C-alpha cells in the first residue's frame, strides 16, 4: 500500500485514467506545462501532449461547453475549473445544458464528462478562493456530485466517475490537498457513486459530513470520546448526489441523534436536504432534533486569519455541537 496525499491521489489517478482510456482529455486553465495551479495535472502534459492536455483560454463558460461538445463526439473530457469560485460563468452551460442533454433528447444525446474543481477555505483565499459551491449543483437533476476527502476515496471515486455515462462534478477540497495523507491499496478498486462511508464507528450520536469538516468531525469525535466517553459515528457522505441515506438511516436507528456538518453556509446548504430527509423519513427514530453546523451566512470565507477561523466549522465548534446533541 502506498501512502499518498489527496493531491497525489488526484494526479496519479488522472494519469492512470488517461493511460487506460485514450478518449480522455484534460482541459482547463494552466493545466498544461504549468501542471495546474495546484499541480494536480503535473506530468500529464509531458506524457500525453497538447492534444490531450489542453491549456484553454481563460473562459470557464467555454471550457465546459467545448468539453460538452467533445463529449458528444467521442471524447471523455475532464474539465478543470481552476477554483470552484469561478464555476459561475459556466453555470448556464452546466445547469441548462450539461445536466439536461440526456433528458431533453430522451436519451439520444449524452454527455459523459467530469468537471473538477478545487473548493473550500482554510488557505487564506478570501471571498473568491474559498467557496463551497456544491449546493448549487446537488439541486440540479442530471448531475452526479462527488466530494471525496481521503486519498483512497479520491482514487476510487475518480475511477468510477471516469466511466460514468453522465456528467460528474468532482469537488476537491483544496486545503486537504497536501494536508491529508492516507493509504491507497495497490490493487485496482472502484468506489461506487452513491455509497457513503463510516469513517469512525460509534453508537451515541451520528455525525454526517464531507470535505474538510469531515476530518474536523473525526478529530472532534475522538476528543469527545476521550473527554466525555461519548462515541460518535462519523459518516462521510463522499457522494453528495445521490446521498447515501441508507447508511445514515441505519446509523440513526442506532443513535437516534444526528448532526450534519458542512463548510458551505448554512441556509440552503446541502445539509438542509439531508436534514429534511432524515426529519421526515426517520421521525419515529429521532430522540433529538436533527442539528446542523455549517459556515455562517456571509458571502464566503473572509480573508484575515481570525475571520477564517471564525468562519470554518473546525473541531472545537463541532465538538461543542456534538456535546449539545448528545446531552439533548
Amino acid at each position, binding site marked *: 500500500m502506498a501512502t499518498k496525499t489527496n493531491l497525489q491521489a488526484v494526479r496519479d489517478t488522472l494519469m492512470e485514467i488517461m493511460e487506460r482510456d485514450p478518449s480522455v482529455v484534460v482541459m482547463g486553465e494552466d493545466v498544461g506545462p504549468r501542471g495546474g495551479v495546484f499541480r494536480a495535472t503535473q506530468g500529464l502534459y509531458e506524457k500525453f501532449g497538447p*492534444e490531450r492536455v489542453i491549456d*484553454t*483560454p481563460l*473562459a470557464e*463558460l*467555454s471550457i465546459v*461547453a*467545448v*468539453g*460538452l*461538445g*467533445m*463529449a*458528444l*463526439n*467521442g*471524447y471523455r*473530457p475532464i474539465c478543470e475549473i481552476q477554483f470552484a469560485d469561478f464555476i459561475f*460563468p459556466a453555470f*448556464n*452551460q452546466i445547469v*441548462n*445544458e450539461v445536466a*439536461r*442533454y*440526456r*433528458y*431533453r*433528447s*430522451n*436519451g*439520444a*444525446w*449524452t454527455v459523459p464528462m467530469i468537471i473538477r474543481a478545487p473548493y473550500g477555505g482554510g488557505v487564506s483565499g478570501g471571498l473568491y478562493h474559498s467557496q463551497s459551491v456544491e449546493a448549487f449543483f446537488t439541486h440540479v*437533476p*442530471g448531475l*452526479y456530485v462527488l466530494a471525496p476527502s481521503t486519498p483512497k476515496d479520491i482514487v476510487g471515486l475518480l475511477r*468510477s466517475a471516469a*466511466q*460514468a*455515462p*453522465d456528467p460528474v462534478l468532482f469537488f476537491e477540497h483544496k486545503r486537504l490537498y497536501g494536508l491529508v495523507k492516507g493509504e491507497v491499496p495497490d490493487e485496482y478498486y*472502484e468506489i*461506487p*457513486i*452513491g*455509497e457513503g462511508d463510516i469513517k469512525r464507528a460509534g453508537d451515541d450520536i451520528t455525525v454526517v459530513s464531507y470535505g474538510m469538516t469531515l476530518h474536523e468531525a473525526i478529530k472532534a469525535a475522538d476528543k469527545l470520546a476521550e473527554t466525555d466517553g461519548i462515541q460518535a459515528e462519523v459518516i462521510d457522505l463522499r457522494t453528495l448526489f*445521490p*446521498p*447515501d*441515506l*441508507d*447508511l*445514515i*438511516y441505519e446509523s440513526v436507528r442506532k443513535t437516534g441523534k444526528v448532526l450534519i456538518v458542512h463548510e458551505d453556509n448554512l441556509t440552503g446548504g446541502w445539509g438542509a436536504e439531508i436534514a429534511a*430527509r432524515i426529519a421526515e*423519513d426517520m421521525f419515529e427514530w429521532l430522540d433529538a432534533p436533527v442539528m446542523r453546523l455549517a459556515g455562517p451566512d456571509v458571502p464566503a470565507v473572509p480573508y484575515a486569519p481570525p475571520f477564517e477561523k471564525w468562519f470554518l466549522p473546525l473541531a472545537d465548534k463541532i465538538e461543542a455541537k456534538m456535546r449539545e446533541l448528545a446531552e439533548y
Partner: protein
Amino acid sequence: MSVQEKVMTRPSDRLNEEQLLQMYYYMVLSRKLDERMWILNRQGKAPFHISGIGHEAIQVAQGFAMRKGHDWLFPHYRDIATCLILGVTPRQMLLALLGKEGDVFSRGRQMPEHFSYKPSKIVTVSSPVMTQAPQAVGVALASQLQGKDEVVVVGFGEGATSEGDFHEALNWAGIYHPPIVFVCQNNQYAISVHVKKQMPVENVADRAAAYNIRGVIVDGNDLLACYDVMVEAVERARRGEGPTLVEAKTYRPVPHSTADDDRSYRSREEVEQWKKRDPILLYEKYLMERGLLDEEKKAEVLKQVMQEVDDAVDFALHQPYPPVESAAEGVFGDFHLVKWPKAFKRNA
C-alpha cells in the same frame, strides 16, 4: 480565366435540374408545414410554434451544402427546412409540435422546434440562445483531433450574438481552427429589438476579423447565393482551412413566434416591403427564367407538399401522448458503478 469561366466555377452551377427542383421542393415543404403549424396554433391545437418562414433560402442552402448524416448540425430554432433536408420527416415535425408519442426530438419534453435527431447528427436544441456555439466548437475540435472529415454547422440569430457565448466560441474557433461554419440568420430583429439596438456595427460578419476567421455576408433570401457561400465555407472547413462566419441577411415576415404580436414594434409597410423579397418568390422567378418551373409544375409540387403536410397533421393529431410515466425516465443513464440508495426516494 475569363469572367465567364470564373462564374461557372460557382458551386451552384454544378447543381443539376433535379437538385435545383429538390431545393425548391424543400423550400415549399418547409413553408407549407410551417404555415400549417401556425394554423394549428390558432386553432388551439398546438400551444406554441416558432417559425422559419422567410428564412428558407439560407436554411435549404445549408442543408444542401452539408453531407447528410456525416456532417453535424447545431440548428437555429428556425431551421425547419434544414432539418427536413437532413432527414427529419414532416410527421416527426408535427409530433414534436404537439408533444406526441413518436416525437424524436425529445419525446414530448421540449417545446416545438427544439430539434434533435441523432441519426442525422442534428444535436438537441435548447432555448437559451447561443449556448450551442461553444458546444459546436467542441464537436468540431473533436473531429479535428480525430482526423475525421466531418464539418459542424451551427446556426443562430443576430440577437444571440450579444451573448458572451458568441465571443467565447469564436475565440476558440480562431485559436484552434476546427472545421466549423457559424451561420447567423440576421433577420434584423430579436423579438422586438432591432439590430441597430443590438450591436454597434453594420454586419455580424464584420466581427469575424476580431477572431482571425473568415467572415462572409450573403443575401439570405437568395437561395443559390447562399448555397455558394455555404458550400465554400463547408468545404474549406473540410479541407482544414478553418472556420467561417456566414451572415445571411434576411427578414422575418411573421411575428417572432405564435406568442408574439409584431405590430407594436414595426410597421406593416416594412413587412410588406420585405415580402416582395420572399425567398420562395425569388427562387421561383429564377427557376422560371431558367425554364425549370412553370405554373403546372408549381401546382404539382404544391400538391405533393400539401399531401405530405396533410398526412403529417392527420397522423400527429391522432397519435397519443407519451405515457406519463415516461416523463420520469432518463434523467440518468444506467451505470453499474452507481448505487442508488434505497432510502433516497427519487420523487420522479
